[in-house]
């Protein structure tokens, strides 16, 4: 169980959630932010922080956003473009910094698909 960032974040990346995450488990990709499900402590700080309501508790995800669960996880378990191994659990987005990569799911979203753009 974890919090999940959905496609409303794509091409927005407000990052208010990153400033609030006490364990620094929200990582920055090229077009979106991703929550590391193995590092999230489920405190819920990110959810109300998001100005575009992109963050959901996974048990409360609407059916049409369920793909976000796998996409958030894939950012850490799959080898992202331009990297030689998965990110895994770096335990801190601060030291990793922004990455010029996205999951296949996010990369394939058309620009402007986010409901708020």
């Amino acid at each position, binding site marked *: 169980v974890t919090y999940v960032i959905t496609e409303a974040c794509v091409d927005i990346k407000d990052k208010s959630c990153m*400033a*609030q995450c*006490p364990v620094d488990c929200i990582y920055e990709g090229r077009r979106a932010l991703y929550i590391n499900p193995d590092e999230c402590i*489920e*405190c*819920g700080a*990110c959810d109300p922080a998001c100005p575009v309501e992109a963050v959901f508790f996974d048990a*409360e995800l609407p059916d049409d956003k369920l793909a976000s669960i796998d996409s958030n996880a894939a950012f850490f378990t799959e080898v992202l473009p331009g990297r030689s191994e998965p990110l895994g659990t770096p335990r801190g987005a601060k030291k990793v910094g922004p990455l010029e990569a996205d999951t296949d799911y996010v990369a394939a979203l058309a620009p402007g698909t986010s409901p708020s753009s």
Partner: protein
Amino acid sequence: LPAGAGRALRVGVVGAGPSGLFAAEELLDQLGDGVQVDVIDRLPTPYGLVRYGVAPDHPTIKSVVSTLRGILESDRVRFVGGIKLGEDLAVSDLRRCYDAVIYATGAPRARSLGIPGEHLRGSVSASDLVNWYNGHPDAGASFELDAESVAVLGAGNVALDVGRILTRDYRDLAQTDMPVSVLDNLRRSNVKEVHLIARRGPEFAKYSSKELRELGKVESVDKIICPEDLAAPSPRDLDRAARANLAVFEGWRNESPRAGARKIHLRFSLRPVEIIGNGRVEQLILERTTVDESGQACGTAEFVAIKVQMVVRAVGYLGVGPSGVPFDEESGRVPNLLGRVVDLDGVTAPGQYVTGWLKRGPSGVIGTNKVDARETVGALIDDCRDLPRPARQSLESVLQHAGRRWTTYGGWQNIDRAELARGRAEGRARSKIADWCELNDIAMNVRADMSPIDGS
């Protein structure tokens, strides 16, 4: 050059909970080797409400400790335990020892209801109960849970924690870090039902839907909600949090009570009017409410009495003013501008800052303190760039001169190891030590305590 320029900035942070520690982290992030931070706490144990507030059956949230530990273990940070501001140390002492001071002592006082009968035996604050089941050394006497029926006033996550802990099968709790004495009392508990009482309707409840869902998963407890409370058509402009809560409540609408199962009654649109009893709580009188246009609860002069033997008020917390620091009694906060302490006339108190609940009031979650610390530390750094660095004395010398003993991070590690060892012996991860003398004895029983605070 300003006095003291060239040496590291010395900052004293009072309070080793999340707000104080995130302030220390922000100082380290911004100033690196240019800062030395002492985190001072009245307890020999760090982590504040993560240790003593977060419910013991929420280990995932408690795991934020591994982040907080990393801050405390930085070589630019020292932990000074067992030192209470206003008793062991005056604000003037802090001003002599540090270039800047950040107050982060939170909001430990429970708000009162201001109704007759509030002081009867059996009427308690949530903080007393939460302190007790979390093994806070100030909790003092234990709670004999001889009440069969309990009312919890308040519609936030603290009320939910209290209701869940009081009804949950103690065998589920036996795996937590609660002190053995607390588990013993929970095992003997007579509690059969808890009424969670909210002033306004379900759409206004401040419970988080995630915590409600978690309560839903506690199968041994019946969740009872009155269909009339869900009958009113909800306004369309509800925010997502309210809609998510209503969805959980709807799921409980048709739960039928099971014989023998403990019950949580979720009750709405009721406000406490009086607690009645001969020496101890026997009845709680409630008035039905409606909500006016501004969203406030108003009485309807329709009264309801419920038989309870315990009333827990979970209606919010207030800060305590550190003596010698400006404090607004009304709001329970230290008045400030972007974290700079100001007096009640708005005049800045130089070198003094505030963060966390003491600054903004008791709202938000653990992570909210990170953003808060960023604002306060930003103000501090802006100020210190141009100001002289007045610190002339070391905290050790001031405390030694006053004949005060303190505990160290090594002392906390002793306590930590002792609790883990106790837990292993009892077949769980940790078993908390709740006794002041025992905590102090274990924390002091370390040779390093004879040397300066961090041995540097």
